[in-house]
């Protein structure tokens, strides 16, 4: 029997070990699986490599995970949003590593990992410092940079609706990196606002087919990063 449902966020992230590579969905606040991230803070795994577009805001969610000293390296495209203070300080003090990846390349490296494609060529970064040391190849007279896939041990993902098989739908721009990350991790852990019965999601509207999902936790009223920050909250 397929059994993907977990009853708590803490049980869903309990086995993430020290040194794991963890993809975390979301683009800024939208689509960020805050409850799963906070459960990972409670759990305490260290020396993590985290893949996200950003580095979190305020002192909640991803920023709190970083601030708690659990992350040794960030792989992201834009590490300094207007409300991000935790990562910039650690980075300037030399206490955290950064691999800067253009946003589209980040998305495609994740997609490639999920699709079983170990590398691809992209025009992005040609002629810039971010292409230094990378293989350049010409196709039809134009130069392209080779970029490797980006795999992870775990993905933490937020969705809107899931069924027991892990078929997922998302809400508006909260989709962002979440469907890609589902495909690229050994173990994909999803928090869903609503868990419905099999058959309650029209198969035509499924965005992430359940084959890419391993664990599902229902979080009916997820908190939102912007609301927590506006309220001056921090975690833990």
């Amino acid at each position, binding site marked *: 029997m397929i059994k993907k449902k977990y009853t708590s966020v803490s049980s869903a992230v309990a086995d993430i070990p020290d040194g794991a590579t963890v993809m975390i969905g979301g683009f800024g606040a939208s689509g960020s699986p805050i409850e799963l991230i906070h459960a990972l803070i409670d759990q305490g795994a260290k020396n993590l490599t985290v893949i996200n577009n950003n580095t979190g805001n305020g002192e909640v969610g991803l920023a709190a995970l970083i601030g708690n000293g659990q992350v040794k390296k960030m792989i992201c495209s834009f590490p300094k949003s207007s409300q991000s203070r935790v990562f910039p300080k650690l980075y300037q003090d030399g206490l955290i590593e950064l691999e800067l990846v253009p946003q*589209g390349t980040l*998305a*495609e490296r994740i997609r490639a990992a999920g699709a079983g494609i170990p590398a691809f060529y*992209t025009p992005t970064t040609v*002629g810039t410092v971010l292409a230094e040391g990378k293989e350049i190849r010409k196709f039809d007279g134009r130069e392209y940079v080779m970029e490797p896939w980006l795999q992870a041990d775990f993905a933490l993902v937020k969705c809107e609706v899931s069924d027991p098989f892990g078929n997922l739908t998302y*809400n*508006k721009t909260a989709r962002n990196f979440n469907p890609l990350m589902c495909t690229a991790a050994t173990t994909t852990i999803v928090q869903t606002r609503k868990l419905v019965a099999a058959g309650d999601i029209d198969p035509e509207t499924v965005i992430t087919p359940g084959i890419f999902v391993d664990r599902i936790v229902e979080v009916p009223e997820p908190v939102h990063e912007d609301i927590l920050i506006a309220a001056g909250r921090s975690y833990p």
Partner: protein
Amino acid sequence: MNTGWTRDQMAARAAQDIPDGSYVNLGIGIPELVARFVPEGREFIYHTENGMLGMGPPPAEEERDLDLMNAGKKYVTAVPGAAYFHHADSFCMIRGGHIDVCVLGTMQVAANGDIANWSTGAPGAIPAVGGAMDLVQGVKHIYVITQHTTRHGDPKLVDRCSYPLTGPGVVSRIFTDLAVVDVTPDGFQLIELAPGISFEEVQARTGAPILPMA
């Protein structure tokens, strides 16, 4: 003294050069203003990198949807006919040459079309690139909208960029507070002067030769 075009006028002037029916991506800052000045009788569809076509104006505070943001992480709305998609599809549109026009701000733009708008390269600066390098390589027409000089009066239109490049040879047209300038194989070419601004004034505040209007 005439100080040239305002930010709104710069944005309105740039909008004039976007063809009807274009799929358009607007950068953060002055480029965002372009959406307010769609010329009469034209329709643009706005793309935002985080996964939407058909982005509409910002909502009233009480009507904002926490799951509906733009690439600048500001709350936006969706127009009728909008579509949502994930990041790989979004950059398929960008890198795959499906977006017609991108309007970007910049720190420097060079006479050979090079653009530098992501990092000063200063020691200790936190590099942040976002989707800029994908946009400049993939979108069909890259327009730049910028003040002609920095706050300190240094030219932003230069012979060669001194900051790290976002992309080489990608910019086609530049809209500033003083003029509209094209990038051609022969360097900068003046297309239009803001009211009351002289060619000599533009040339004096530009870091490379500008060809006068034909």
